[in-house]
């Protein structure tokens, strides 16, 4: 349990930087309310509250990629990791310490988006709880991507890559537009990436199609999460030896 000290530090670094919390937690909520207001009279199914909610939540997780990658890249470049490398911490300790603290933020993001969604017409049901659980793999994908970027990239590269992920998560998750309706490259790329699968899995639950309607999408997202954490752990091991 030696990782708990470093995990505690990660947690404090996040929560003592209010801009991070405001950007990551409040911006998606504001976006949800804004979209709902702008599209209030629009009868397109795409902008119904049940469709908007999963998209916004998945988009909000992309902020976690940026935050987790930035902290790790900074620690790497400012010798903080050099100091820790002489400690008995193992690669898995680092992976846990640099990822677990983002889960509470992701939970708060999801919770606040759901609370805001209630204001715009999503009805309270047990489905909400299921959606919460269904979105966990997507949450892990974003955190895992941050881990990989943080280990492999420099601080400057992380800023660019983080913004890129935000754009990708926005365009290719199907949050604002139906990828199948657009088709072509958008659909192919979108469904090769995990974000659209995360959104579709949650939408299936809210639409009442049950877990069975989400299984394939879940497998995609879980696959990405596992691969990203494996790559992150192996990369960390190499970083610590380099």
């Amino acid at each position: 349990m030696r990782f708990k000290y470093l995990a505690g530090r990660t947690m404090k670094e996040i929560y003592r930087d209010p801009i991070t919390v405001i950007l990551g937690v409040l911006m998606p909520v504001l976006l949800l309310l804004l979209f709902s207001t702008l599209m209030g009279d629009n009868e397109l199914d795409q902008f119904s509250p049940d469709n908007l909610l999963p998209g916004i939540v998945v988009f909000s997780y992309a902020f976690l990629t940026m935050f987790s990658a930035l902290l790790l890249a900074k620690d790497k470049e400012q010798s903080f990791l050099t100091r820790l490398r002489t400690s008995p911490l193992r690669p898995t300790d680092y992976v846990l310490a640099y990822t677990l603290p983002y889960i509470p933020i992701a939970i708060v993001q999801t919770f606040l988006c759901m609370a805001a969604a209630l204001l715009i017409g999503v009805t309270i049901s047990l489905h909400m709880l299921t959606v919460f659980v269904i979105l966990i793999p997507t949450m892990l994908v974003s955190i895992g991507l941050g881990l990989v970027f943080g280990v492999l990239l420099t601080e400057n590269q992380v800023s660019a890559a983080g913004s890129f992920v935000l754009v990708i998560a926005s365009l290719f998750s199907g949050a604002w537009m139906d990828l199948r309706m657009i088709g072509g490259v958008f659909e192919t790329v979108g469904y090769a990436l995990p974000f659209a699968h995360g959104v579709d899995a949650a939408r299936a639950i809210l639409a009442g199609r049950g877990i069975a309607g989400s299984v394939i999408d879940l497998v995609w997202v879980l696959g990405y999460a596992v691969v990203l954490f494996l790559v992150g752990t192996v990369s960390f091991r190499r970083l610590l030896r380099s």
Partner: protein
Amino acid sequence: MVEFAITAQGLTKSFKDLVAVDDLDLKIKKGELFSLLGPNGAGKTTTIKMLSTLISPTRGDARLLGYDIKEQRESVRRVTNVSPQENAVAPHLSVRENLVLIGGSYGLERSVINRRCEEYMEMMNIADRAKSQAKTLSGGLQRRLSIAMALITDPEILFLDEPTLGLDPEARRELWKLILGLKGEKTILLTTHYLEEADQLSDRLSIMSGGRIIASGTPDEIKAQFEGKKELTLIGRDFPAEFKSALPYEISQVGERLTLSGAKIDVDRVIELIGLHGVSLEGISMKEPSLEDVYLHLIGKEGER
């Protein structure tokens, strides 16, 4: 019999075509403060990284308190700690939290961590800032915190990599006092490119250039090895030509200052000549070669190779 805390034989580190440290031999006694002095790129930090097991040597061996840096890395890490070149502190954590983080990461019990926190915050004069976030501390205080973080594991060997780099003169001298306070309690290997720092702090030092050690000894021994020029400066209104021609040294005059240079200057003979020629003297000063002169001489010679 002298007990050595650090011994290294033929320690070498290459990065592709670059030989960063070349065939380095070191013997550092227990409780000694030993400095590696040299310009940027001399191989000082790479040496510390090898000895602290952060990187593996390409060739050669080193033992720290008997533990082999290649075969017994965990044991080496138990008895050493490093204060890296940059501050390497967590900016949003308080001084105490930074110390607890390192103690906890090394698996120390909480009661031990708490006791050592007090002890080392006191020793490094940062106890009054225990609750301040590290980012609010001055550069000098952050450096003291960084050293306290290295001390919290109670290492027998402490590596200080450029501990006063970037600090203002006042903060540097404050830190020197604190480092001198550790002398004898810990074996300290310090890297620096400040000559005065090496001169003031070290029991012994090695000058490094291009990855190799080019001189070793106590600061006085190194100065004595150097047969550089001494300078005797005479201050007066008028130096007669006969007086100047009688002096068997290189002479240069700027206004009222007459400077005599040579490997050996016979001050008694100069004073005798002053009396003989009736020179009216207002002042006299002698400049011995400093560690800086030795350093520049040696580094210059290396550069010519």
